[in-house]
């Protein structure tokens, strides 16, 4: 098998996909998180500012999902096909909420009528909450495994089988983490009374996160098989949950010092550490089978050919500096507090 720096191609691609989904979680994390606070803002003006804070950015942030899914399809077609066809209903709901969310952003400001804005506000709020929750549910099912039989064919239930207590907990934790991230981002972009309100809301968000995270961790350690074994083999990876905890613990301190940019970096780090933990838990498996470990989808039985992976790694090497350049330019252009003008939503 071909390697680069001693790492085989499927593993490299596993890292690429992981990096892309981490980027997605961090960037869309604050977009979805900001949206999940939407109904907590009372005035129409506050809601407009909150939407316009992500206004020029969310379309670009969403590209990380598109590229991530494309990378999964390209590098691990078996994983892409098996995961999506197995979790059909959760993914269809996820997609539908994505469409509704974009529609709400685009059409909310089209009319001044109260009922119009209120309807879109509710649609927007529900979509953001549901998207965050569903992402967590999908992640939990990937960690726990699903009923995959021979030839990658799914044998399990349609929807409610994906909503195990563990999945619900991971879903809530994801929502809480996104809401924390979203509140910090909005603190960075707002001023005045909305800013004060957000400081208050962020505290609630942090508590929500710490409670759901602790409950989920306890549950994982006690009930989810395989977790403790993997740590016994590699105790050094215990650093990851500890780092995640330290990173999130640093956020309230930075917020009280009004260093919102740094706070955002640290809550992003939390996400990155948690996703590394996920990667560590899984590798080299991508989607465990609960029927028979032989049926699990792994980076080796799901991977594209060496040739194809080589081509795609070249594409990534050429493409990522370009992408980084675009993003730097975009974020530099819209740096600073939100100012509404006639082009705003």
């Amino acid at each position, binding site marked *: 098998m071909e390697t680069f720096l001693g790492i085989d191609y499927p593993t490299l691609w596993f890292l690429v996909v992981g990096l892309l989904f981490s980027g997605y979680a961090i960037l869309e994390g604050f977009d979805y998180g900001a949206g999940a606070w939407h109904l907590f803002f009372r005035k129409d003006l506050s809601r407009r500012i909150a939407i316009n804070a992500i206004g020029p950015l969310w379309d*670009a942030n969403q590209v990380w999902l598109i590229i991530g899914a494309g990378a999964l399809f390209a590098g691990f077609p078996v994983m892409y096909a098996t995961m999506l066809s197995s979790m059909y*209903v959760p993914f269809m709901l996820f997609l539908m909420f994505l469409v509704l969310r974009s529609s709400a952003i685009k059409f909310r400001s089209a009319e001044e009528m109260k009922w119009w804005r209120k309807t879109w506000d509710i649609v927007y709020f529900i979509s953001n909450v549901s998207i965050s929750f569903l992402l967590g549910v999908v992640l939990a099912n990937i960690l726990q495994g699903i009923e995959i039989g021979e030839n990658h064919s799914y044998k399990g239930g349609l929807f409610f089988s994906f909503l195990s207590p563990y999945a619900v907990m991971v879903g809530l934790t994801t929502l809480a983490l996104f809401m924390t991230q979203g509140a910090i981002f909005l603190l960075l972009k707002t001023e005045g009374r909305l800013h004060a309100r957000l400081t208050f809301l962020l505290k609630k968000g942090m508590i929500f996160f710490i409670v759901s995270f602790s409950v989920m961790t306890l549950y994982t350690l006690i009930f989810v098989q395989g977790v403790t074994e993997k740590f016994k083999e590699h105790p050094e990876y215990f650093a990851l949950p500890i780092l995640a905890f330290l990173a999130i613990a640093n956020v309230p301190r930075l917020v009280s010092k009004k260093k919102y940019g740094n706070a955002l970096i640290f809550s992003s780090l939390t996400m990155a550490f948690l996703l590394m933990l996920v990667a560590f838990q899984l590798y080299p498996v991508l989607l465990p089978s609960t029927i028979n470990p032989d049926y699990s989808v792994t980076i080796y039985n799901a991977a594209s050919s060496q040739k194809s992976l080589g081509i795609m790694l070249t594409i990534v090497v050429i493409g990522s500096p370009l*992408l980084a350049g675009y993003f730097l330019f975009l974020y530099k252009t819209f740096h600073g507090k939100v100012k509404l003008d006639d082009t705003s939503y």
Partner: protein
Amino acid sequence: MDVEILARIQFAFTIAFHYIYPPLSIGLGLIMVFMEGMYLKTGNKQYEILTRFWLKIFAITFGIGVATGIIMEFEFGTNWSVYSRYVGDIFGSALAAEGLFAFGLESAFLGILLFGWNRVSPKVHFISTIGVFLGSMFSAVWIVVANSWQQTPAGYHIVGEGFNARAEVTDFWAMVFNPSSVDRIIHVWQGAFLAGAFLVLSVHAYYLLKGRYIEISKKAFKIALALATIVSLTQLLSGHRSAEVVAEHQPAKLAAMEGHYEESGSADLYLFGWVNDKTQEVTGLKIPGGLSFMIDQDFEAPVTGLNAFQKEDRPGQVNAVFQFYHIMISIGMLLIALTLYASYLWWKGGLFEKKWLLKIFAFSVLLPQIANQVGWFTAEMGRQPWIVYGHLRTDEGFSQEVSSNQILFSLILFLVVYTILFLLFIYSVNKKIKHGPYDEAKNPDEFLKYV
């Protein structure tokens, strides 16, 4: 209903709906590049007003295009899992390239294009407009490459057997430049330019008829007319080249397009007609030997007909393919006639005096849209029964583990959400058009103080 049919209906519905928007974005993108370029070059504020106005409509088409496009990306996996495993090695790299090179470019610059007027210099804004336009052009490239590979596979070999069989890349560039991709990309781009150009023509014809925004409408109309005339003419060339490739690589599709059954004989070219699949006869107006002439420049040249293929190896819906193809061709011819005549009047002077012509233009927006849709229906239904031509059948490609009830559930969801989305689209575009580029109560120069 069975799973395969439902999966096909859902895919057809979601892709057809999606395809209303990206062509508009590509076409409007090009026109906006031109308008904003003229503004930078001449300093004439009227071009700035036009750019800002069309940008508002562009924002809506682009937004719906992205939202409905994400669904397409996931639908390969949800509903066509066997197909996805089969083509992932090939399709995947095109999709990855699309994401990194095209979507990254367009989405990052979109933010600056829409909200950056007061934050960047006019030049940087213009660069952003070009960035978004190029991004949308590139995204068309990669997705058409992937689709063309399904029509005329190249640069691959098949590995494994039965369930584990799949296509793997052997030559990346041969895969990208497979026999049909270049002609089809150009054809798709041109279709997109026409969609955008005719929207602009339609809206400004409407303003001219109503006596509103006369000055700027004449400017915009001329820009769009020049583009529409050139493109509708050159569309003939890329269309013809595409047909030649179909003749060479997908003879069954070509035969279905003209309802040609005879195993190997001179083939006719129909202006219009009706195919009876049972009697294998076509009733309609034809040029005898026309298809033979088009392919081989010889009225007698034999063309492979549908009967040269086993019943299970050729398209099932011959009349549908025939009709869709002929609607596309008829609209293409109509657009050529319309734009040539209008250009002639423009050259002679008096283009804007013919009310009836402006009225036709006001409704003409639908024509390229219909042509784009039926063109794709011809291409995709003509490819049947194959999902990857000659290798994988459509009835082998769908997700076996998804039940018909699940697809019914998602299909109904799509129907409801997309209907609402479509109504919102029509409503808000209509509102923006009615409202117009600026408040007419004040004159344009007065208006500019406020922007």
